[in-house]
């Protein structure tokens, strides 16, 4: 829903720990940027949330990411309203920490689908209360029996951030196009968006895919931008068509180089597949997980120390080449080949 404002927001530049303290409140609804564990996850922010003991998060999202992996590892997520919770063996299987918490009854899972969540955030972004979408009729996602928030008694209208219904199936009233599904807007308390560059006034920019980060930024009450670098606002005005987020939606800017590690920031650095495998392996038993959290989350005095512990060699290997990614990091069992041209283009053009 629209939030009518009497005056413009003014973005403040904060440190990582100050931004978490001020904006990541226990019990709030939070959406993180990026897509899956591989692209622009604001991991440093989630890392600091766990260190500060933020709890009972209602994560409203469309992916299992490095952020949700860590928050689940610390059992900080109470409601996970999303559509894809992969992380096991680094993507295709359920996040093991989440699976454990779910089995123990510590987390409520509400299922949607990628398209549905994208549309819900689009509705939230444009100030619409709901959006019609041709969501799959006959899918149990849109079966009233399977409404986890409803079953938990949370759709009683008392929480202004939880819709009174999961969905409504109705006959499309304008054109006679059969049935369609109405989905409630998503409008969380906080958006945490990791970007490549932000101006000191708040204008933000990234390269590579957009996922739904622009929609999330407009859909949420508060927006914290985590940037690889903060540059003079004038720098951002040279190519305004390349910017995605205007300054007036931004509440706070944090400069945090490598803050999306171990996910990637295209044209800055690649994802660290080996470290993500270490995370996944650690989640397989509680002792290993506690050891991982002690070593990588609680022990370092700061995010900089976390990076120093990762080692310069690794960070150099991850630095992006002209393609936007790195071919120096061993992702599989063999090194990446040196390619000049995609085979399809070399042989058949476009």
């Amino acid at each position, binding site marked *: 829903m629209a939030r009518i404002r009497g005056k413009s927001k003014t973005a403040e530049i904060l440190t990582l720990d100050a931004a978490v303290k001020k904006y990541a409140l226990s019990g709030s609804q939070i959406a993180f940027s990026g897509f899956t564990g591989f692209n622009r996850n604001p991991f440093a922010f989630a890392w600091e949330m766990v260190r500060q003991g933020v709890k009972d998060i209602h994560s409203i999202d469309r992916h299992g990411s490095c952020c949700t992996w860590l928050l689940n590892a610390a059992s900080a997520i109470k409601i996970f309203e999303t559509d894809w919770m992969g992380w096991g063996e680094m993507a295709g299987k359920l996040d093991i920490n989440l699976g454990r918490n779910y089995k123990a009854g510590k987390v409520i899972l509400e299922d949607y689908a990628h*398209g549905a969540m994208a549309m819900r955030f*689009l509705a939230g972004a444009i100030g619409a209360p709901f959006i019609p979408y041709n969501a799959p009729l*006959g*899918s149990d996602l849109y079966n009233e029996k399977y409404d986890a928030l409803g079953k938990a008694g949370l759709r009683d209208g008392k929480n202004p951030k939880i819709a009174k219904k999961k969905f409504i199936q109705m006959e499309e009233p304008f054109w006679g196009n059969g049935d369609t599904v109405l989905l409630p807007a998503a409008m969380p308390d906080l958006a945490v968006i990791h970007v490549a560059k932000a101006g000191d006034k708040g204008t933000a920019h990234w390269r590579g*895919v957009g996922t739904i980060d622009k929609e999330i930024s407009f859909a949420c009450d508060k927006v914290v931008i985590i940037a690889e670098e903060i540059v003079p606002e004038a720098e951002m005005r040279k190519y305004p068509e390349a910017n995605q987020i205007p300054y007036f939606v931004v509440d706070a800017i944090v400069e945090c180089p490598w803050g999306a590690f171990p996910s990637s920031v*295209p044209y800055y650095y690649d994802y660290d597949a080996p470290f993500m495998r270490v995370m996944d392996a650690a989640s397989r038993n509680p002792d290993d997980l506690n050891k991982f959290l002690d070593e990588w989350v609680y022990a370092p005095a700061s995010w900089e120390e976390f990076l120093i512990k990762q080692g310069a060699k690794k960070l150099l290997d991850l630095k992006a080449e002209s393609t936007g990614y790195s071919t120096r990091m061993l992702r599989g069992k063999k090194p990446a*080949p040196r390619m*000049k041209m995609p085979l399809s283009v070399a042989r058949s053009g476009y």
Partner: protein
Amino acid sequence: MAKSMEELMELIDKIPDTPAKPGEFILPELMAIAIAHEVHNDDVVFAGTGLPMVGIMTANFTNAPKATLIYESGICDGKTMHVPMSVCDQRAANMSSTLGGLVDTFGYYLQQGYVTLGFLGGAAIDKYGGVNVTSIGDYYNPSHRFTGSGGNSDIGTMAHRVAYIILQEKRRFLERNDYTTTPGWWCWDFKTNEWKPKKEVWKNTAYANNGPCGVVTNMGVYRFDAEGIIYLETCHPGITVEQVKDNCGFDLNVSKLTGDTPCPTYQELFILREFVDPELIFLPAKTPYTPDIQAIIDKG
């Protein structure tokens, strides 16, 4: 001395495009190439992470170089040089036409009707092509909980045709799913509580005639008949009809079996091994070439 990628590219046309023999390739290679064969040159393909992505990348390098590849994070027609690990890997966005986001891919491309072929995975499938990627057992207290839909339910119903790749086991090939994430040719009409042909449930929508066109498993390739019921089309080399039936939870129609799944050609295998996944991210190991193919490669 290892060959450069340019030298390997020059070699492609010297490798015979004739079928390899069973034993000269491994099952994931056969499956990736079977997926590739589903793709036509004029398709707009929307594929999920994992083997579907490897398969359509192979198609783009072999039989369908002009096919358009859409990845759900917002990528339109990526021309990939290195196999992506995820649908939002920058590798998948290489030389793409446009880069947007999920609203672009699920709204502008998919809901708008541009996507001709969806290629997806699944944890379980029913006799009618309905797919479950959510949970087994009681939804609220499941014996197995999977990742959830992701793009599966949207792509699987709004793409004109959709193909699945699924590991075949008795508990994954079912008369009915415990939870239907993506409906197949038959599904529940929740308004009347009746099990119906999808065409009736989706009546008057633009998507009523969309549905599953094929399933590739570790044992065979499947199609759907006019009633929307799955049947076995081919068995992979070395797999018998009895083995297939033993790994199916319902009475499978095997009367339309046409024979063995075609073996990949030497050229297709060369492209898959050298250009699609030489980093061995999805393929478990590099299978050695036969002596005569290796001789062609060594000679240059």
